């Protein structure tokens, strides 16, 4: 079994195994945690580019420009040189959350990692300490400005931040590396920094314009910018900060509060966590999540889950799982605050105890950071046993089923109504809906680890849910006075609510892995009903039912076309209605889910294996014609040699309107040029004499033919066309001989054929015969 989204689960299981080995206790955790969020909103894009996570303050993932056709990969740039090492460290999976490629005009802003990566020996062993996931601190996170020049992304500047990710701490994050995510305002790039601070950089030069530290002048190494940076329409900046308990002793270091026995008990609470707002004027405000009053109130102790020794779950209709200290509510990792048009700020919190991930809230703040409302992700669902998980029909343990007699609807792991879980391995962030409500995609384990997507209204009332939500920031597409929600919808090859454990024979019966797939891109209506689905149908020897969708935030263009990448290596464009618009192969990988974005010109940006790919509709040559007399001929046209005596021009038709100049055609001495701005460019010159001309329509240099979006011909590739001009060689055998003369003479009494019209005057007559005759004996060198 290998499923994205299950990486966290597997790592947690590994961690649990480690704990068992240390403590001889039987953790009841079968998988990881949770959470859920919600958020909302508007699909109106702020700008033409893609300045932040989810494109706009609402994270709707939509942009009011038309995406270009997926015709060519224009550029591919490695931004994470350690991807292969990271995959080796994590059982082949790239458990890194990456920044969305940010776009602004002809600029692309992207994170690039440098520094060093210290692999473990063997990879994945977490030893010798500190290595692998415990050695993130030796990497450097840089923000780079790339600029399109002549079809290439050219680096303009690079800024090395001192930001470090919150630590994995021996696998407490399951190896999932938190995101480093910048955002753009009008003239600045906002980049995460160390100690909960952020840098404001000149968008042009990359020079720091300031460093904003909500905690004074101290840079606390235990305080982390823990979310993407969000900017609102007014240029205010928002992000989350976590202050963690960190020690240098790996045996006691427990920032994520698993507790000394890795059972959630006796764990130390998180010191604090904040939502930070930096106004466009540079005024810093923050609010402590610990200061918030949640409704329903938070609890001192929280229910964990049943032990695998109690399988099948729930152990009985009245069973209660063990309890753990809930600890404080704090924002989940990677949760980008979302800003509604009215200024409401949405975030998502979870109990800090990882065994209490079923206690999570969507939190709404006023613009002054005062609390507006909170909405729990608990007690919203009722689709566990008997719905998504069958109830055994006898007392005999049954595959993928709740225990016989289980209560209808409950989560088999808790015997409670299912709860959306916020887990730190996810990058799900709230999305504001056009009606002011909020969507959050949370984790749930009891449905083959698919999670659930929750929608709340603007007042925090639960509206609806859909049973997929793992690592997903949905796109919200507005149309016809309503909106739709676009998500990935993978069916993972996980056990229904638990995983097989060799030490638990009953688990081998109950926790049966599901078959892989199917894998959909699904569009939902506001009530979370399916509007359409698009299924991945690629197959290979190990994927008989398609490949997973590998995006964590899709992109939707002006027309509602959905852009989504898949583990089959393709970037897909999907029309409204769920039909394929186009696709292009980029790179097949088993990496972490990644976001997509569009540029203001409709270019597509996607990521795979630590490499950024830019895809666009580039102008291509549709036809290349030579002009002679009043005639023209499309080359090569099945010919090697051109028999005409009056070739005085070249007319090239492109796939779209283009610009160019006289120097855009080389290989001949151009004397005239026309057509710039249209689909057809024409170059003229003196009649070509017998010779070979290596012509090129330039896709490179300053004279490159470019489309109106500035994309160069062929994505930056010259179009070469050899013209073998051998007047008289109508037989195309490379020689002018008497047979050519006979052919043209014969053609005088036949239907017009431009090949025989040697002078291009529109008629084949004795003049043409004579022109051939005069050249008998010639050939090309």
């Amino acid at each position, binding site marked *: 079994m290998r499923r994205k989204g299950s990486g966290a689960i597997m790592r947690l299981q590994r961690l649990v195994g480690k704990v068992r080995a240390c403590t001889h206790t039987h953790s009841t955790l079968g998988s990881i945690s949770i959470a859920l969020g919600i958020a909302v909103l508007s699909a109106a894009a702020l700008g033409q580019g893609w300045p932040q996570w989810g494109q706009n303050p609402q994270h709707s993932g939509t942009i009011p420009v038309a995406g270009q056709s997926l015709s060519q990969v224009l550029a591919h740039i490695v931004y994470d040189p350690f991807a292969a090492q990271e995959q080796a460290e994590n059982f082949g999976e790239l458990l890194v959350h990456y920044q969305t490629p940010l776009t602004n005009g002809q600029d692309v802003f992207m994170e690039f990692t440098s520094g060093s990566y210290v692999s473990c020996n063997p990879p994945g062993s977490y030893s010798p300490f500190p290595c692998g996931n415990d050695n993130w601190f030796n990497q450097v996170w840089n923000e780079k400005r790339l600029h399109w020049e002549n079809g290439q992304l050219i680096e303009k500047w690079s800024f090395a931040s001192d930001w470090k990710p919150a630590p994995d701490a021996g696998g407490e994050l399951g190896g999932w590396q938190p995101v480093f995510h910048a955002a753009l305002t009008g003239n600045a790039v906002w980049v995460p920094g160390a100690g909960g601070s952020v840098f404001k950089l000149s968008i042009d030069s990359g020079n720091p314009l300031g460093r904003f530290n909500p905690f004074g002048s101290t840079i606390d190494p235990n305080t982390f910018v823990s979310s993407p940076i969000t900017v609102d329409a007014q240029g205010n900046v928002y992000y989350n900060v976590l202050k963690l308990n960190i020690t240098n002793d790996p045996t006691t270091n427990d920032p994520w509060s698993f507790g000394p026995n890795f059972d959630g008990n006796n764990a130390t609470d998180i010191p604090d966590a904040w939502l930070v707002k930096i106004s466009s004027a540079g005024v810093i405000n923050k609010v402590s999540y610990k200061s918030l009053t949640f409704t329903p109130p938070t609890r001192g102790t929280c229910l964990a889950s049943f032990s695998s020794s109690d399988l099948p779950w729930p152990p009985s209709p009245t069973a209660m799982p063990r309890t753990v200290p809930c600890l404080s509510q704090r924002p989940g990792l990677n949760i980008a605050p979302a800003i509604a048009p009215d200024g409401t700020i949405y975030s998502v919190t979870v109990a800090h105890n990882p065994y209490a991930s079923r206690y999570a809230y969507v939190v709404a703040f006023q613009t002054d950071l005062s609390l507006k409302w909170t909405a729990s992700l608990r007690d919203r669902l009722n689709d566990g046993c008997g719905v998504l998980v069958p109830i055994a029909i006898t007392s005999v343990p049954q595959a993928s089923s709740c225990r016989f007699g289980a209560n209808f609807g409950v989560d088999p792991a808790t015997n409670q109504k299912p709860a959306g879980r916020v887990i730190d391995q996810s990058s799900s962030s709230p999305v504001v809906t056009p009606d002011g409500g909020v969507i959050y995609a949370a984790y749930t384990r009891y449905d083959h680890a698919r999670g659930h997507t929750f929608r709340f209204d603007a007042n925090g009332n639960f509206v609806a849910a859909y049973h997929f939500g793992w690592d997903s920031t949905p796109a919200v597409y507005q149309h016809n006075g309503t909106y739709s929600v676009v998500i990935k919808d993978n069916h993972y090859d996980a056990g229904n609510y638990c995983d097989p454990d060799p030490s638990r024979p009953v688990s081998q019966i109950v926790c049966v892995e599901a078959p892989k797939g199917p894998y959909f891109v699904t569009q939902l209506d506001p009530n979370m009903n399916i509007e359409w689905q698009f299924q991945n149908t690629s197959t290979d020897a190990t994927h008989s039912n398609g490949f997973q969708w590998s995006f964590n935030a899709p992109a939707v263009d002006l027309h509602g076309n959905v852009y989504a990448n898949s583990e089959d290596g393709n970037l897909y464009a999907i029309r409204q209605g769920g039909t394929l618009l186009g696709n292009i192969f980029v790179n097949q990988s088993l990496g972490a889910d990644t976001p997509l974005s569009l540029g203001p010109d409709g270019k597509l940006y996607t990521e795979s294996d630590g490499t950024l790919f830019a895809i666009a509709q580039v102008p291509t040559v549709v036809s290349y014609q030579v002009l002679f007399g009043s005639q023209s001929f499309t080359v090569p046209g099945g010919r090697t040699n051109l028999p005409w005596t009056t070739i005085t021009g070249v007319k090239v038709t492109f796939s779209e309107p283009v610009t160019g100049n006289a120097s855009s055609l080389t290989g001949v001495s151009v004397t005239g040029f026309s057509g710039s701005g249209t689909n057809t460019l024409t170059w003229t010159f003196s009649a070509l004499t017998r010779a070979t001309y290596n012509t090129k329509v330039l896709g490179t240099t300053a004279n490159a033919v470019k489309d109106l979006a500035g994309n160069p011909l062929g994505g930056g590739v010259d179009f070469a066309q050899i013209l073998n001009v051998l007047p008289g060689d109508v*037989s195309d*055998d490379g*020689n*002018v*001989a*008497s*047979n*050519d*003369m*006979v*052919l043209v*003479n*014969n053609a005088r*009494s036949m239907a017009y054929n431009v090949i025989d019209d040697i002078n291009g005057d529109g008629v084949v007559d*004795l003049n043409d*015969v004579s022109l051939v*005759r*005069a050249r*008998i*004996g*010639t*050939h090309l060198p």
Partner: protein
Amino acid sequence: MHEIRLQNVRSLFRRLFMMTPVLGLLISAPVEASLIITVGNVFSNSPSSSNTLEVDLTNTGPAAVSLAGFSFEIDVTDPHITFTSATIATVATYVFAGNSLFGPIISTSLPGQTLDVSDVWAAAGGATIAAGATVGLGHVSFDVSAGDFPGLVTVALSPFPATSLSDPAGANVSVDALTSGSITVKVPEPSALVLVLLGLFALAWTRKCLRQ
């Protein structure tokens, strides 16, 4: 006598028997033409003008050949010899007699040491060159300027594609051999004139004596 006749018959059968494989091959082999273009050999004085030579095509193959176009190029290295033109007034029957598209003058080059000649069958189809037939391709005129040295000057045919044959469909027809010709330049010398005069004188004297 009878025995002699019998021996002759046996000899005939023996020869026929020995020739059987050869005949078999000949019968089974495709019928192919063997086409030879030949430049004539002529004598010309220096100086002289309006000299001529013939360029002919001979079909030595077993089957007739149909042609609709031809070209040939001849050249000499002697700068005193200048080809001036070529016409269809060939000694042998002109290949496209009665159907020349470009005749009577069928050369395309300017006077010089190289002459390009070509013509096309004007009507539908082409000319048939029977097996064993020789036809004219061009009646070439040339001048020899004063000051040339006596001797033989080779008139060479240029290879394909300058010299070529085409069938009525416009396909190349292979020429199996290009046979160069020659112009033997003669330069009248004073001693020779004297000998001629002496001869004439002796002839006249002899005749006179005989009469007497």
